[in-house]
């Protein structure tokens, strides 16, 4: 039952002339611990990733996560699937780092004191000890992404989907976040333009023009992408 399954999924958006298909019929089963989605801008990778926790609904077909249908059991799916966005600024919704992590913990820690202590513990686990009172506005790109990741993982998901989590980061922070993601015990699905990161995953999918063009080992798929980009 564990893992991610897409059954004949398509995604279309309405246009003036009718509709435009942004993901053609796709069937997949993702059971590997670390999966990368690579491909050109606008190819449909993010759409594919957003299907996994219901941020984008399938126009036709079915998305199943850990045996749960995303369309009908969205709440349960979102508890299992954490999502990290490209820009942490959009994801950090509370004024300070501690409050942002504490927001994620409201469901599991009803008592406020316990919640704040737990939030500080999460911050420390992510190397952000002492950042509790810092404004989320004042964090660097790497710190912000780390905090966004901490806020998502604090909810205890079994799967983490990350949509270009290193795109806005410098080389050092990009490596740091990449190492952290690849070392997680959760199943990871990462959309990325960082081919070094993709090569360290267990399976890579190349998405082009709304289709999974190639699916296989990192060496094969990344090699093909480098040769045809």
């Amino acid at each position: 039952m564990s893992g991610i399954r897409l059954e004949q999924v398509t995604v279309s958006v309405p246009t003036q002339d009718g509709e435009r298909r942004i993901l053609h019929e796709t069937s997949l089963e993702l059971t590997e611990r670390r999966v990368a989605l690579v491909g050109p801008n606008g190819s449909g990778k993010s759409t594919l990733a957003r299907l996994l926790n219901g941020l984008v609904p399938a126009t036709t077909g079915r998305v199943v996560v850990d045996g749960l249908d995303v369309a009908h059991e969205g709440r349960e799916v979102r508890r299992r699937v954490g999502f990290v966005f490209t820009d942490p600024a959009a994801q950090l919704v509370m004024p300070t780092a501690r409050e942002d992590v504490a927001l994620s913990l409201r469901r599991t820690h009803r008592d406020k004191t316990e919640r704040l202590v737990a939030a500080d513990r999460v911050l420390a686990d992510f190397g952000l000890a002492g950042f509790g009172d810092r404004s989320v506005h004042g964090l660097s790109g790497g710190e912000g992404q780390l905090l966004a990741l901490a806020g998502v993982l604090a909810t205890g998901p079994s799967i983490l989907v990350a949509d270009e989590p290193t795109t806005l980061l410098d080389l050092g922070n990009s490596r740091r976040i990449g190492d952290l993601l690849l070392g997680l015990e959760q199943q990871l699905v990462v959309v990325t333009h960082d081919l070094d990161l993709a090569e360290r995953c267990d399976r890579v999918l190349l998405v082009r023009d709304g289709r999974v063009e190639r699916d296989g080992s990192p060496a094969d798929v990344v090699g093909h992408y480098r040769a045809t980009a």
Partner: protein
Amino acid sequence: MSAQLLGLHQPGTTWLHRLPAGAKLLGLMAASLVVVLVHGPASAVVFVLVAAGLVVWSGARLGFTLRAMRWLLLTAAILGAWTVWQNGWPRAVEVVGDLVALILLATTLTVTTPVDEVMDAVARGLRPLRRVGVDPEAVALAFSLMLRAIPTTIGLAEESRDAAVARGLERSPRARLIPFVVRVVARAHDTGDALHARGIGDD
């Protein structure tokens, strides 16, 4: 950078910091009612002085706080100029004084109270309304998002202004306003997605 500090809690040990969030919220509501209901330029000046005194008493870093408020103060100044033109000095002093007093009172609350405590107080206060279909947690979250949106929106306005200046369009209101509105809507959409992805609002 200025926008970062607006609406941001600054830890401290003053009496205002120790006062429960619910009491401060009720106090803010009551004070706001008084400010709005009592008319006249003299009372407006008194309100500003009292509110400024509270900000000082809260231990807020004054330089930072004033810099953070500069766009709001600029808006108040524009409003004041308009009111002088339309209704004369006494009315302008009253309108601008009331507005600045309300901003300072709200700043005192945010400086001395973590948003988490404000959310809890709002949720507690609204709990009796659960019977008529109100979700106290959702209202409390909306309240905190509103506080968070103030510095974010100011930051987006600064970005839009900088982008217009970089293109030599600093005198074009259109080049500032349209990208600003687009940015605000996009950010609201992204924030909605982020909340949705974190399962906030599902409970």
